């Protein structure tokens, strides 16, 4: 293994990659192993796999990954551009600040987009008030990279009822079914639906020298302590570092990308962990900071790469909803991964429903299945949330509860966007992210439709008690999509189909912001496939002297 290099900031490296998450980690690995000198600037700390524990106080209450919220970020939210955006208790755009980004803490459900996702505008027609368009690439163009994600990152799964065509089989079998999955099979089949195996970016076997899952149950919002979760941290960063061409520079908060008078970017300016201004010169820059941070940085870099005015627009969170049930016997959903079966029967939009949209319904313990979060937020509703009765209730239901989680479409619209707050700043003094968001009515109708289907499955599976909240408007999200969309037309998109800025020839953007439509609510696999594809395009261009 080569030594990990430390590059001089004044020397020009081949690439600076801003962000080390789902996209940045892959691009850094691909570029560095191809021989390009690469510096990755990551605002978070370099936390490594053996550091991760099941510590709910550290990770949930004390914000180890997600930070201290608006007090530090100054982030604001509003649902209408004519309103003044307000700081709440929480950031409306949620992402982990750590090497590997949010891929470290995701629950790792990996859905390929289907062929129809790429040309759905042509299939279903225009939708008023939206920027709903076809992608500039097809499923067939991206398919090899979905397979590459499965093999290089490590994905466990099995083909199902609704699978799109694939060029290679899954590299390893699915993770073991859990009780929520078994109940979904029972309920869904009773309704004539087709429950599929849920694919996970979590190893079911030793793969690429990494250990398989221990079924410890601490996936969502936790880092995997054995590195079985196929995050950028576990799967890509070590390979990048071993190339001898890649330096991961953590606790480096970028505040400007510098453009020279010729219209090319030359340097990336950042604050180091002590708050000192630093700069890294580079021949080219890859921006992979996520769908909130990437547009913020462009807007704050003198409106860089924004001749279209599309930077920050078309924000999509994915609509989410869910219903919950308690069963007679023990499920023990605190064991194993989240969600082992999924119903994709309602993936495609259907005009007969009276609205646009589609999505998947997965069976899982629930988002709050770790003991402390369950006791505070995950338990069945009750009049009194303390005392002997409450204690007995959670002691009974903790092991008997599951949920039907809906992941669904969001339509791209001008009114949903990331802008700079006119006065608020974050702890570094950068203008704060201002989120403006109001779901399209179809997004909520679709989420409610799917939630009702999930409820039917719970009932058909024999739930003793069920409950849910109506699908409602989003006030924040962890999926940050669409804000620097790709497209062939420089007037209505930020990057071309190879992720190069229409305006700046040596600036590439690849992360959730690149997406043209929202996926059906599990976007990370697509972000990763795009990253592998973008890296191939960037490598080719660099080798041809075309950057």
């Amino acid at each position, binding site marked *: 293994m080569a030594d990990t290099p430390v590059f001089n900031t004044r020397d020009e490296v081949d690439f600076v990659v801003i962000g080390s998450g789902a996209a940045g980690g892959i691009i850094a690995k691909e570029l560095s192993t191809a021989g390009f000198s690469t510096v990755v600037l990551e605002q978070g700390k370099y936390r490594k796999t053996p550091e991760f524990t099941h510590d709910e106080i550290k990770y949930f209450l004390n914000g180890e990954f997600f930070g201290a919220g608006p007090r530090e970020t100054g982030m604001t939210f509003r649902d209408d551009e004519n309103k003044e955006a307000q700081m709440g208790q*929480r950031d409306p755009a949620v992402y982990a600040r750590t090497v590997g980004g949010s891929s470290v803490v995701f629950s790792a459900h990996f859905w390929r987009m289907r062929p129809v996702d790429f040309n759905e505008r042509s299939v279903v027609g225009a939708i008023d008030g939206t920027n709903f368009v076809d992608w500039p690439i097809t499923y067939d163009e991206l398919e090899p990279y979905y397979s590459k994600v499965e093999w290089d990152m490590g994905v466990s799964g099995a083909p199902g009822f609704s699978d799109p065509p694939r060029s290679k089989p899954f590299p390893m079998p699915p993770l*073991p079914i859990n009780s929520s999955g078994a109940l979904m099979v029972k309920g869904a089949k009773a309704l004539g639906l087709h429950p599929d195996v849920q694919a996970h970016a979590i190893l079911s076997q030793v793969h690429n020298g990494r250990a398989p899952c221990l079924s*410890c149950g601490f996936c969502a919002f936790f880092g995997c302590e054995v590195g079985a979760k196929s995050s950028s941290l576990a799967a890509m960063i070590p390979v990048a570092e071993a190339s001898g061409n890649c330096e991961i520079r953590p606790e480096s908060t970028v505040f400007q990308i510098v453009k020279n008078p010729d219209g090319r970017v030359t340097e990336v300016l950042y604050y180091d962990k002590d708050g000192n201004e630093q700069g890294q010169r580079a021949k080219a820059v890859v921006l992979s900071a996520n769908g909130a941070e990437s547009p913020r940085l462009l807007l704050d870099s003198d409106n860089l790469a924004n001749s279209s005015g599309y930077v920050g627009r078309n924000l999509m969170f994915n609509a989410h909803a869910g219903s919950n049930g308690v069963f007679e016997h*023990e499920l023990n959903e605190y064991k194993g991964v989240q969600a082992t079966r999924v119903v994709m029967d309602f993936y495609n939009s259907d005009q007969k429903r009276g609205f646009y949209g589609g999505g998947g319904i997965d069976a899982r313990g629930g988002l709050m299945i770790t003991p402390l979060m369950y006791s505070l937020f995950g338990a069945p509703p009750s009049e009194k949330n303390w005392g002997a009765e409450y204690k007995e209730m959670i002691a009974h239901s903790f092991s008997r509860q599951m949920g039907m989680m809906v992941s669904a479409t969001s339509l791209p619209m001008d009114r949903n966007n990331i802008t700079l707050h006119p006065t608020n700043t974050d702890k570094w003094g950068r203008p704060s992210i201002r989120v403006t968001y109001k779901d399209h009515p179809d997004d909520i109708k679709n989420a409610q439709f799917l939630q009702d289907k999930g409820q039917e499955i719970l009932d058909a599976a024999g739930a003793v008690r069920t409950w849910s909240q109506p699908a409602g408007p989003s006030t924040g999200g962890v999926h940050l999509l669409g804000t620097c969309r790709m497209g062939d037309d420089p007037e209505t998109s930020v990057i071309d189909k190879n992720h190069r800025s229409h305006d700046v020839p040596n600036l590439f953007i690849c992360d959730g912001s690149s997406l043209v439509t929202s996926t059906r609510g599990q976007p990370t696999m697509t972000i990763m496939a795009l990253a592998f594809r973008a890296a191939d395009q960037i490598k080719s261009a660099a080798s041809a002297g075309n950057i």
Partner: protein
Amino acid sequence: MSSHDQSRRSFLQQSAGLVGASWVKVVLPGMAAISQAACSAKEEQASYTILDAAEAGEFESIMARIIPATDTPGAREAGVIHFLDQSFGTFNAPTLPMLRAGLEELQSGITDGRMFSELSDAEQDALLEENQDTGFFSLLRIMTFAGFFGMTEYGGNKDGMGWSVLGMDPHVHAYSSPFGFYDAEYLKENPNG
């Protein structure tokens, strides 16, 4: 309004807002808004680091009604008071004045001179029910569950008692299939998964 009142009020709003939050709110570090310091692991101690014994006894009495002993241990048995005490020396330090003030206010609701800890269980429950919508109670409730279910290095959840109450084995952190009743049934009929 003094700056102390203002910060107290904003804290009350924050802690009240933590209750009943939807999942995405939970991802957000509600508690982090009042904390910065990392929590250092310590052995459980019989004595207190921040609280004096008398006020510790009062806090413990409240927590013992939030999670009472039933046929399984409650907050008192799990040493949750040591979690609270330790938290005041670390990440939870900014809330100590507010919780002390809340304790005084609660006590002021008792007119016959007894301490809260001297009331009967039923009297304690009645008084707490009157106060259950306050920021004081909301925060103490969160801290009680945090001390009951948080990792033992934070001072509470003695011997993993909290996890045991939920049916988990506190000494096991990896599992194998089958996990529960329904997947075991499924695998009988579908041995290949």
